[in-house]
């Protein structure tokens, strides 16, 4: 192995030794010194544009941007001299001079990197006057609001869309003072092939990008006594939510989350994990049928709505490869409004189903065609993890003091195979657990499929089930999905089954999850920490296979018949449509 060359330097008088090629920013972090940043994001955005991260390097003519400047032998760096602090302060004050500084009503109030920098540097927000841009707010999609009046042109969203998703739907348009973030031909987001993943929201340091909130709809539904209001949470929500209340990343707060929702007055507090179990039954059966009857392979999972929209825009020729299964969110709503409404003797029109999702694209999905099993939309309101946290605060609940609650029966009962849906590889692992048992015709001890775990962008495995080699692949982040899709299109892929999640690392890192600052994103492996909480819960669980969920068995025995039955098809499956790009 080639030896890594170490470089010795001094930062604020302290000796530091780091591998050659390290930036000053990273070297300083290693020495326990924090340098503020704004435009820099590890792995995706090192453009040296904002100059918030400047430091003094002895002998250099001017201050240097530490996020892109590599260390060299004998270098002497000062990160906190008066000169450096003044320069950063002026930079931020200039940004603030063309910024809609309405913090009090801003979605990012108290969770804003610009606000924090301004405070840390002691900025005078009104120091520089002059011209201010005014932009229309783009609220044309059901999922994202873009407010360029708050944009500081760090281009982190642009980098996320291009590098995580391989899409580059948004970029910087025009030049000079008129420069702004927008889509091609300054079209509305609703008129371009944006998939609604929300990764751009998650990296935005300020309030320029946020989900279209449905909080008021939830409150209105709760106040309408003629409605039976159900709430249910996706697997990743319990893993992310705690971060909004000061818990460390990777805390599972399921119990307190359930209690919080119950205290808000919902008629039932259910778990979308149940519908994930149901998805495994339907999707697993669909897969076996395709495998045995010469159906279109590889079969592609259909849980991730941004992924579905991506295929519809970019690979309409591969729509037949998509599983016809609705996503767990939609299956959940569909079962509520058919089976459960019948059981309760309630008109589905008088039922409101609220889903809590780590995802912004779910807001789009609920309005798709062919997602109304009972003649009314399967899901009425889809809120993000962040919106649930806001609701909890709005209701005045002291989250960390809440007792541990349990989901209601029956639709709150689930296996931890369903929980795995939150992490990349989880749907595949859950499916394999059930497929192996079903195809072998007996209960196997093998439960953990570690080959499909982990946060790598693309994973492959060959699993021998009942004497047959099943070749599977897993990808997260649409830039990675593209690699697999191009292979399929070119006829170069011999996979049988592929799981795709749009967000890097899967739903735990979804566009609706708590926003992490660049400092956290740059220094922690957030998706791995969150996924760890999922696998920890699964390893402690007694019920780890979807087909072993007693409520699932009951649902088929008493209502649906068998997986992929005619009735199951009517309620739990859907269709897709080719969409144009522009």
């Amino acid at each position: 192995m080639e030896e890594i060359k170490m470089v010795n330097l001094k930062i604020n008088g302290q000796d530091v030794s780091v591998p050659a090629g390290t930036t000053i920013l990273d070297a300083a972090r290693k020495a326990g010194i924090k340098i503020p940043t704004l435009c820099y994001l590890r792995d995706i955005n090192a453009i040296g544009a904002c100059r918030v991260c400047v430091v003094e390097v002895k002998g250099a003519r001017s201050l240097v941007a530490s996020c892109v400047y590599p260390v060299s032998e004998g270098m002497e760096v000062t990160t906190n001299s008066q000169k450096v602090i003044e320069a950063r302060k002026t930079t931020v004050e200039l940004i603030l001079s063309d910024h809609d500084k309405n913090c009090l009503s801003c979605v990012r109030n108290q969770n804003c990197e610009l606000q924090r920098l301004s405070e840390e540097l002691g900025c005078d927000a009104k120091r520089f006057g002059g011209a201010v841009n005014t932009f229309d707010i783009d609220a044309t999609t059901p999922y994202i609001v873009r407010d360029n009046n708050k944009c500081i042109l760090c281009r982190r969203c642009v980098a996320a869309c291009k590098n995580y998703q391989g899409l580059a739907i948004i970029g910087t348009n025009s030049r000079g003072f008129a420069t702004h973030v927008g889509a091609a031909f300054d079209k509305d987001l609703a008129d371009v092939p944006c998939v609604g993943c929300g990764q751009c929201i998650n990296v935005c340091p300020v309030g320029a990008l946020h989900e279209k909130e449905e909080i008021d709809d939830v409150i209105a539904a709760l106040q309408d006594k003629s409605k039976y209001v159900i709430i249910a949470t996706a697997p990743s929500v319990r893993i992310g939510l705690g971060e909004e209340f000061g818990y460390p990343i990777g805390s599972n707060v399921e119990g307190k989350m359930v209690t919080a929702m119950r205290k808000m007055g919902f008629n039932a507090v259910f778990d979308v994990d149940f519908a994930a179990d149901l998805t495994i039954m339907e999707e697993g059966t669909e897969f076996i049928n395709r495998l045995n009857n010469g159906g279109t392979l590889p079969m592609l999972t259909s849980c991730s709505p941004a992924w579905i929209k991506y295929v519809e825009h970019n690979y309409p020729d591969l729509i037949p490869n998509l599983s016809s299964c609705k996503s767990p969110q939609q299956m959940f709503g569909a079962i509520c409004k058919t089976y459960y409404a019948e059981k309760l003797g309630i008109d589905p029109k008088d039922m409101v189903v609220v889903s809590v999702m780590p995802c912004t694209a779910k807001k789009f999905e609920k309005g798709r065609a062919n997602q109304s099993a009972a003649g009314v939309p399967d899901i009425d309101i889809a809120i993000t993890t962040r919106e649930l946290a806001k609701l909890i605060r709005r209701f005045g609940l002291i989250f960390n003091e809440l007792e541990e609650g349990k989901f209601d029966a029956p639709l709150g009962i689930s296996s931890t195979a369903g929980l795995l849906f939150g992490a990349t590889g989880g749907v595949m692992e859950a499916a394999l657990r059930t497929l192996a048992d079903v195809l072998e015709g007996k209960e196997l001890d093998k439960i953990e499929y570690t080959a499909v775990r982990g946060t790598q962008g693309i994973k492959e495995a060959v699993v021998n089930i009942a004497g047959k080699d099943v070749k599977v692949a897993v990808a997260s982040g649409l830039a990675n999905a593209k690699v697999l899709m191009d292979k399929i299109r070119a006829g170069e892929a011999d996979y049988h089954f592929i799981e795709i999640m749009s967000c890097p690392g899967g739903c735990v890192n979804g566009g609706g999850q708590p926003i992490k600052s660049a400092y956290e994103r740059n220094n922690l492996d957030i998706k791995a920490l969150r996924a760890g909480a999922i696998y920890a819960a699964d390893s402690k669980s007694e019920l780890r296979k979807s087909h072993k969920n007693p409520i699932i068995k009951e649902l088929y025995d008493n209502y649906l018949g068998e997986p992929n039955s005619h009735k199951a098809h009517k309620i739990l499956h859907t269709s897709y449509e080719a969409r144009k790009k522009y």
Partner: protein
Amino acid sequence: MARIKISKVPFAGTPEQEKALDAKLAELKLVPGGLMPALQFAQELYGYLPIEVQTKIAEALDVSLEEVFGVATFYSQFTLSPRGKYQVSVCMGTACYVKGAGDLVDALKVKLGIESGECTDDGKFSLIETRCIGCCGLAPVMTVNSNVYGKVTTNQLDGIMAEYK
């Protein structure tokens, strides 16, 4: 200033132009950094860069339409509006400017309902501001295609424009 104005003039590219662009793109897709030369070629070929042309470039070079648009709107050598049937240009050289060329431009913008560099939606008139065209004795000077008008005042504009109805 919020949004960049996009011309509504229908695209009228010819099959010959399309063939020329295709040939150029086939060549450029093999080399890295082909976007700038592609845009320059297309700007020269069509006189502007409508969505039809930018889409073609995006597809050929395997970049997104926004990436093409971002570059096309960053450099002032590119334009998004076609040249009108009648190109109205006002000289903004020092002599003309001093004699009120700015007022002419302002009045034309109002009359035509467009900014400099744009074209009316019916494709008839486009408006540009030029550097000194060397007729300083006639300042302020404007031209409509190859016809030159000297010592123009704002009240003459209606009469001049009426010649091109």
